[in-house]
């Protein structure tokens, strides 16, 4: 009852603070739009492809594609040097019938562009080869038919005399043309499916920078704003004396904490829905899994952020001191959240990530968005988030004892 009253009041206050509300909803949209623009406009940048022992035809085909420059190298080592000197973005090497592609992959859009260029170049080449082969075999067929006709004519002409030797020669010739044409066609089909192996200097084929960042980024916005705004709100309650006054009524300490949780939980749900919709409709990011699951995980993260914000606000004496927690508490979360691959870090650094709530929500949301994992298979991550939530909430309820002893 009192919890609901506190929730209503907090919501009323929040919805009257238009600027803060705008910050919560518009800032993430703005930042994500900016990021998607910045990280995705690279598709128009030029990519430089180095080729080693690739047919002239393929070089020409790829070179004719917009924004693709082809440089030919004689040896693989020369190409590799150019790759490490950042002169080229990828190497295409032909080994017999197969291709080996090496990408710098520092920029996933360039990698994608090279892949596309190679594919279309290869297709174009094989199509023209196929065409040529087809042409050859058609001319062969025409020749054969002509020969056959000639043969029939000859047969007809030499009906009485029966020039069997001429017929034998013609048949031999026809068989020979036939065999060359089949040879040609088998050759061309074998060339359309060469084995292609991809190598990445950095990352792997799943590296799509924005796509990888997005699920974590989403959680980060939820965490950041809920942490900051709820922390500030409770700080304000404390400094204006409303908290003291609130505690001078028979209200339970837990009611205050739960009231805040409910109101900010509602806000976080709206915020997450807005962010998810923006990413899906505006930025065109594909969500493989269930969107409701994404909202649920982010709601959980928001509640952790809320409890965290409330807890830390008790250590701050002013709004400015609350802001000081951003570089200390919020920014480090990004580093350990998984935006930067954790496997490449030292073990002791990796261990830090276990106490970062954003890591767990990031893992879970990434799985749901990119791999379509069911929320029921994210039990581990959810359990950790819940543990965070319960411990922090408990600390908050106990922590309010500072202001009232019962």
């Amino acid at each position, binding site marked *: 009852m009192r919890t609901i009253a*506190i929730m209503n009041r907090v919501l009323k206050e929040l919805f009257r603070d238009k600027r803060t509300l705008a910050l919560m909803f518009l800032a993430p949209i703005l930042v994500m739009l900016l990021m998607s623009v910045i990280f995705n406009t690279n598709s128009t940048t030029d990519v430089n492809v180095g080729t080693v022992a690739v047919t002239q035809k393929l070089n020409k085909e790829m070179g004719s594609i917009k924004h693709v420059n082809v440089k030919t190298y004689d040896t693989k080592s020369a190409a590799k040097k150019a790759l490490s000197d950042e002169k080229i973005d990828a190497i295409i090497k032909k080994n017999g019938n197969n291709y080996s592609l090496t990408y710098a992959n520092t920029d996933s859009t360039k990698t994608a562009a090279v892949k596309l260029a190679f594919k279309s170049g290869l297709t174009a080449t094989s199509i023209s080869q196929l065409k040529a082969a087809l042409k050859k075999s058609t001319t062969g067929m025409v020749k054969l038919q002509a020969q056959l006709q000639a043969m029939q004519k000859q047969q007809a002409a030499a009906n009485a005399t029966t020039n069997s030797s001429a017929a034998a020669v013609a048949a031999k010739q026809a068989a020979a043309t036939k065999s060359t044409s089949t040879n040609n066609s088998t050759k061309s089909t074998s060339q359309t499916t060469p084995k292609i192996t991809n190598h990445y200097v950095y990352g792997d084929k799943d590296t799509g920078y924005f796509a990888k960042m997005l699920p974590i980024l989403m959680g980060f916005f939820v965490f950041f704003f809920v942490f900051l705004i709820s922390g500030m709100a409770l700080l304000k309650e404390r400094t204006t004396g*409303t908290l003291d006054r609130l505690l*001078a*009524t*028979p209200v339970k300490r837990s009611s205050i904490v739960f009231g805040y949780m409910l109101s900010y939980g509602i806000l976080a749900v709206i915020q997450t829905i807005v962010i998810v919709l923006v990413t899906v409709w505006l930025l065109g990011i594909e969500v493989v899994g269930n969107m409701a699951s994404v909202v649920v995980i982010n709601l959980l993260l928001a509640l952790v952020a809320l409890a965290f914000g409330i807890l830390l606000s008790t250590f701050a004496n002013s709004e400015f001191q609350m802001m000081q927690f951003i570089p200390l508490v919020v920014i480090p979360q990004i580093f350990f959240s998984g935006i930067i691959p954790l496997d490449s870090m030292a073990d002791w650094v990796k261990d830090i990530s276990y106490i970062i709530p954003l890591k767990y929500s990031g893992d879970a949301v990434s799985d749901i968005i990119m791999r379509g994992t069911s929320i029921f298979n994210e039990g581990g991550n959810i359990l950790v988030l819940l543990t965070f939530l319960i411990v922090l909430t408990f600390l908050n309820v106990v922590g309010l004892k500072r202001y009232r002893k019962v």
Partner: protein
Amino acid sequence: MTNAIIELNHLAKKFGDETVLKDINMTLKKGEIIGLIGPSGAGKSTVIKVTLGMEVASGGSAKVFDTVMPNRQLLGRIGYMAQTDALYDSLSGRENLKFYGLMKGIAKQDMAKEVDHAAKVVDLTDDLDKRVSGYSGGMMRRLSLAIALLGNPELLILDEPTVGIDPALRRQIWKELGSIRDEGRSILITTHVMDEAELCDRVALLLGGKVMAFDKPASLEAQYQVDTVEDVFLKAEGVE
């Protein structure tokens, strides 16, 4: 004493090494206004905090309604007004009153009546639907007082209620406090305004963590052989 509303018995309070209250003995009876006076830092607010159960006594005991504080349920029977206004700026006066009313546990059906009554006492009826952020300092103070009056509590604890309130309204408020007392309810009030102290039934003079004097204003004046409570205050403090 059966009719003691507040009973402070050898109350002591330490914050770390700092002793704020040494030995406070004070009783507030039913239907009585007690004024708590003393210089800044004498521990007036601490007395109130311990009485409300915000802080726990380091020694002695604080009893309200014959129950040792802290006790959460009892808070519903106490109307408290802090030194700071403690209002929600973005809410209207009425919303503030309603919210605190709900926190105090006033039933929904009585709420409108209670809110109107409290607003009438502090003369805020016309401004009740304005946002508090548009209020003047005096209006905020009045709203804060109205919140304390909600639900007709048996005990009012007011920390400097008349700061920033103009004389006419102050007189009106004291009139209201008088009628509250006449209804048999009790008031503990801290003040810096000495002529207000004259209006109290009894005055407790707090100095250096102790109650230096606790009596009727007239008796105090006689005891210190001065004409006003202000002089009592000055004499007790050693300023002359």
